[in-house]
């Protein structure tokens, strides 16, 4: 009898084992298919960026070009004005990201660790800044930056100095229009970063600071000596998000930087710039040529981000899980 039940059991177990294996295989296949779809645009860009454009018409060439060319990349660099655009992106997007990471950290800490009247209302307003589209206020932000007069101080100076001092500063086309809001917790998606930092600091044990407070350190000192050394993961997470979003942001530079192209705005006007070339001669009207040049340009613009992500992804995905961005 015992032999028979064991046989029955083992058959059941084998069946369950097979079902589990089938599930694992199905999961792997599904995830691989989805992963392929996600990598597809990258492969597409890579394949086209280095392909001589005439091979687009060659039915034998699907993914791997028969020969490689730097023509597309070289043209893309010229038309993007890559050097200048990269410099401008560095000055705006990258510097702004570092500013945001710092300012939002301090604000988030303030929301997480101090009880003061109006805190909840203020935090609700942080959330409000997240859900109001930039475009709603962009028309009046334009005039704010164009005739920048912080809290009427410039007008006051103008009056006091008897007109020797201008009554406004023109911030349009200057990187300050990125830096200033970023310093004051109002940069691109700053609300999200404040939110993330707040959740993170809320999850830290209070004992950490209490010991320092008993020693008589003031809160700013406590923050820098006790909290900051423990906040590495969340700081880097926010930094990576900020870098990606600021780097890719088209709207702000297109709106307020008339004479300084960033990589994003240069890419947006790439096709028309390419077509303008054809009016001054050269064959720039072929659609396959346009396509390969544009893929090369796209690749050039996001390549730095891809490299950055390749180096940080392992750490990044882990840290998002550990810090628990959501805090629920």
């Amino acid at each position, binding site marked *: 009898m015992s032999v028979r039940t064991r046989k029955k059991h083992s058959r059941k177990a084998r069946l369950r084992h097979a079902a589990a294996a089938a599930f694992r295989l199905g*999961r*792997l296949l599904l*995830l691989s298919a989805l992963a392929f*779809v*996600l*990598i597809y*645009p*990258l492969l*597409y*860009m890579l394949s086209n960026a280095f392909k001589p454009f005439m091979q687009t018409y060659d039915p034998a060439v699907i993914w791997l070009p028969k020969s490689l060319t730097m023509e597309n990349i070289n043209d893309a660099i010229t038309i993007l004005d890559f050097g200048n655009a990269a410099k401008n992106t560095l000055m705006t997007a990258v510097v702004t990201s570092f500013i945001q990471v710092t*300012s939002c950290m*301090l*604000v988030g*800490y*303030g*929301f997480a*660790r*101090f*009880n*003061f009247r109006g*805190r909840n209302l*203020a935090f609700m307003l*942080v959330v409000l800044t997240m*859900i*109001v*589209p930039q*475009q*709603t*206020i962009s*028309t*009046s*932000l*334009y005039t*704010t930056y164009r005739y920048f007069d912080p809290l009427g101080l410039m007008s006051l100076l103008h009056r006091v100095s008897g007109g020797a001092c201008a009554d406004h500063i023109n911030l349009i086309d200057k990187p300050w229009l990125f830096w200033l809001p970023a*310093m004051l*917790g*109002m940069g691109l*998606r700053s609300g999200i970063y*404040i939110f993330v930092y707040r959740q993170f600091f809320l999850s830290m044990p209070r004992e950490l600071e209490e010991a320092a407070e008993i020693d008589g350190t003031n*809160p*700013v000192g406590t923050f820098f000596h006790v909290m900051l050394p423990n906040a590495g993961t969340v700081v880097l997470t926010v930094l990576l998000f900020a870098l*990606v*979003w600021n780097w*890719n*942001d088209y*709207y702000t530079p297109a709106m307020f930087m008339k004479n300084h192209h960033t990589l994003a705005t240069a*890419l*947006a006007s790439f096709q028309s710039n390419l077509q303008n070339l054809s009016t001054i001669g050269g064959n720039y009207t072929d*659609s396959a040529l346009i*396509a390969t040049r544009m*893929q090369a340009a*796209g690749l050039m*613009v996001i390549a730095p981000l891809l490299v950055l992500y390749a180096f940080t992804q392992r750490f990044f*995905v882990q840290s*998002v*899980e550990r810090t*628990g*961005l*959501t805090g*629920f």
Partner: protein
Amino acid sequence: MANKQDKSLLKRRKARWGWLFIAPWVLGFAMFFAFPVFESLHFSMNSLKMSPTGFATTWVGLDNYAFMLLRDAKFVPLLTGELIEMAYRVPLVVILSLFIAVLLNQPFRGRGFFRSVFFLPVIITSGVVYVLLQGIINANSLAGTQNAYIFQSQGLAEALVAAGIPGSIVNAVSEVVNRVFSVLMECGVQILLFLSGLQKIPDSTYEASAIEGANAWDNFWRITLPLSLPIMLLNVIYTIIDSFMAYGTENAGNRVMAAIHQTGFGSQFQFGLAASMSWLYMLMITLVLLAAFAVLGRAARKMEA
């Protein structure tokens, strides 16, 4: 007594430090948010003229709104189109993200690799590159479909046709497949958020449920889904605000935003009209968000009780 006084003194001092920490934000909020918000409301009821010395406003009351709603034939259809798009896209993004997050939360070899890949689209889709790719692929696609998708399921469609399935069904299937693929590109952050939430559900919860004889399917509906509701709400909000971050042109991306930008900063600088357009858009978004809060917030509370 003295101790108590000390404590309240300490409390007040801490409160002051708290204000100090958020003071920069308060200043920024006033200068770069509150003031522009009120000014743009003011603009929306004015006609603006730019000049080298500044700008002049002429009060026109609700004329801008009337023009947009009654006489402009383009903007209202654009808005309703965006609303319909949002109505299917947001649930699709959220459900797909939850599904993938649940898969990626299971222990298996190669999980780390897949997690990295699924965040990859954030780098691509948050920028101009994405719209560019869509445009190119659309221009190149032989099918010449109306919608631009990053991934064309042409291979699948051809296989289905070869299998003798009628063309209309094949078209419908490949439309759905393409749409799922294009939605997948927008799920990066949402998957990550769900994952970080799923990590917080202790294994003991599932173990206890398993002892009661529940299988994985039961566990999803009884544990995973209810406990993910708050994050689901967060993801709905994120998906909506993400849609107006995106770069748009007349044919791809966020078309409402492109239209507003074109009106305000195109050839005619109709700031006032652009402001009223964006206020109407914001009103619409707010209503959608409130609806999401009402439905998901109530569901979350019910689950808690």
